[in-house]
């Protein structure tokens, strides 16, 4: 329940950033898909059932601010979570490169699933050309975002470890 609340807050914050802050900084046409990145992270770190539910919910949240049909991204995020969960368990999750790999495959799968769903269920066939044209740029910006987040997190992790070590050293001095 705690995780659900946390992911909901993070999801809503990311969507607000994606729809109103990022367009001012990087423009309308090229923005990272933050919810997709969050779902990929969930796929690599959460339990299957809870993770699947979070992914679906986050996708539905995204649908409120994206496109016209509720449930489109919900369904796609659920499938992406499933793929990430199954694929991720075959790899060493401690390695940072796994998230990069997941981003590449996740972004491509997201676009392909979107095209497939639109072709099968709706009459928006013109969207497929648009999505395919924008895929390389979307892939690049998603990768850049994940790289930036990974770099920032590793810097923060190193700093916290250094502080912890310093604290231990001071503790030892006090002990002696």
């Amino acid at each position, binding site marked *: 329940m705690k995780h659900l609340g946390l992911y909901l807050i993070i999801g809503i914050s990311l969507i607000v950033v994606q729809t*109103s802050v990022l*367009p001012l900084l990087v423009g309308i*046409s090229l923005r990272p898909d933050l919810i997709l990145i969050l779902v990929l992270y969930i796929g690599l770190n959460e339990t299957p059932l809870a993770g699947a539910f979070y992914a679906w919910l986050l996708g539905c949240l995204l649908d409120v601010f994206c*496109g016209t049909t509720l449930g489109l991204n919900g369904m796609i995020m659920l499938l992406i979570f499933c793929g990430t969960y199954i694929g991720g368990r075959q790899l060493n999750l401690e390695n940072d490169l796994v998230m990069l790999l997941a981003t590449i495959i996740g972004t491509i799968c997201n676009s392909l699933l979107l095209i497939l769903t639109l072709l099968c269920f*709706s009459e*928006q066939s013109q*969207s497929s050309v648009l*999505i395919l044209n*924008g895929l390389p740029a979307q892939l690049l910006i998603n990768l850049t975002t994940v790289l930036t987040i990974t770099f920032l997190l590793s810097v923060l992790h190193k700093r916290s470890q250094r502080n912890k070590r310093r604290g231990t050293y001071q503790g030892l001095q006090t002990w002696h």
Partner: protein
Amino acid sequence: MLDFLKRHQTALLFSSLFLCALLLYSNSLRQQNKANLFERGVLQLTSPFYQVLDSIQHEVATLWHNYINLTQVQQTNLILEQRVREQRQQLLQLREVAQENNRLRKLLHFHEEANFPEIPARVIAVDASSWFRTVTIDKGLNDGLRDGLAVVVAEGVVGRTIKCSRRTSRVLLANDAASEISALIQHNRTRGVARGKGDTITLNYALRRKDVKTGDAVITAGTGGIFPKGLPIGKISNVIKHDYGMFQTLEITPSVDFSRLEEVLVILGEQQ
């Protein structure tokens, strides 16, 4: 049986969740333009954040302009700098006011020409994904908006409202692939359907035998029940005639720059 269920518990639960997701999606397909309780709730929940972010953005922009002025002024004489700073600030503010005035005057001019009640609105957010073309405006059910109202600017058609919540509404832009507008070519009254294509719009189902040239203006036909007749959609930029078939496909350059939308007018309905 119980053993089988236990063994495949995860797969079965995942399949049920996927089935739920599919059912929700297929159900939503039938009511694309209407906001349900979940959507209305989320939109209502997030609207204060958007309002706050919008006002912060204005404040930051003003601060940034002031900061730039200040750093420039520090390099020159203090007294002159003071005057220059004041004048520049005034100029910036005046320019901003003039631009806003221009935009609003255009809207007002449009308002005077039009015979139906409208309500002005500000664009506060864009679509969450790069594939779809929608924006969020700061007016909703409380302001008299409802689903399926035409949204325009002085240059022409912007789109139509979908999924209205109490304080905000989403607008499906005319260049979205899901958008279809009944249109006609102004000079020879050739009818067609203007469909979004991302950055451009295409006019489908225009009769092949009709003489159409690049630069011809395309306007709303007024037959769809949403857009009043005669609103500009754009100008024809390319004529595609296939070797066979009854129709020709025409590419339209929209008259509205969808990437720079700030203020819009929502047409509440034709005058009684």
